[in-house]
């Protein structure tokens, strides 16, 4: 099990760096909400949130140093979440809704 590396101890500096980045990105997301990006405001907000979540998953949750199987679980979870939202929305936006507006 040489690949498992389960005793890897992440240096404290990495945690501090992620923490500072998360605080900065929180500021950026508040700033971005006040800007007019047309139809893309939500995409910008979700993009920033995805970047923050990725840092938390990789560093705080140690997935960067995790086993391949753990990493596969994480990716599978995200893929199935995207399937859930994409298939549902493809239905809702491709036919009129009687009570819409």
């Amino acid at each position, binding site marked *: 099990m040489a690949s498992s590396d389960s*005793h890897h101890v992440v240096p404290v500096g990495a945690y501090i760096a992620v923490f500072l980045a998360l605080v900065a990105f929180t500021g950026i997301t508040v700033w971005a909400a006040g800007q007019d990006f047309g139809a893309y405001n939500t995409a910008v907000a979700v993009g920033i949130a995805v970047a923050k979540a990725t840092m938390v998953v990789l560093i705080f949750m140690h997935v960067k140093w995790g086993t391949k199987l753990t990493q596969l679980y994480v990716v599978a979870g995200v893929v199935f979440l995207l399937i*859930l*939202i994409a298939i549902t929305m493809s239905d809702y936006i491709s036919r009129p809704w009687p009570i819409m507006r």
Partner: protein
Amino acid sequence: MSEATGSALQHHFTSLDQQKNAATLGMWAFIVQEVLFFGGMFTVYTVYRSQYYSVFEACSHHLDWKLGALNTIVLICSSLTMALAVHAAALGKGKAAAVWLAATIALGAWFLGNKVVEYHQKWEDQLIPGLRWGAAADVGRELHLAGADVDRAQLYFSLYFGMTGLHALHMIIGIPILAWLARRAWAGHFSIEYSTPVELTGLYWHFVDIVWIFLFPLLYLIGHR
């Protein structure tokens, strides 16, 4: 092997490495189903937001985004203290781990306290669907909405309470677990060989942080332009 290693290793595992990998994978299986559990609510949010775009923006404008931003920072701080608790426990520093866990609990409690303030304000404003929803004229004036949009605002606030409430419930469940871990860490139950409970609870706490990272912009910040 030290005595602690011997007692930490369950007989059905061949090594501590294998035992820890199995436990970590099991925790991730739980977290992935949590992703889809919350994912159902995010899907409902996406559907209704796309249908009632302007109503959601008007309702979002009513939330206190400054309190939401403060809570985001508080929760990020609690994730840092949690990471430092895991770090200390992995190095066998039980007392330090206990202190960081206590700090995590304090920050979690601060977050929930702010949530109580917010919920109370919604109670005062009569914006709690099904429990305390004001007359159409009052709600319409409060949210700057008119006609059928006033009723549709209930969708937004149902999602607001459903999603933030479920998120808060996860923290309410997490805090006693953190307290139990702090007690064990202080008593010296964890070592360099074995600190898996702290590590796995850390995964749970960070996951709860991630949920809020998405909830904050999607609920608090969509009415700002």
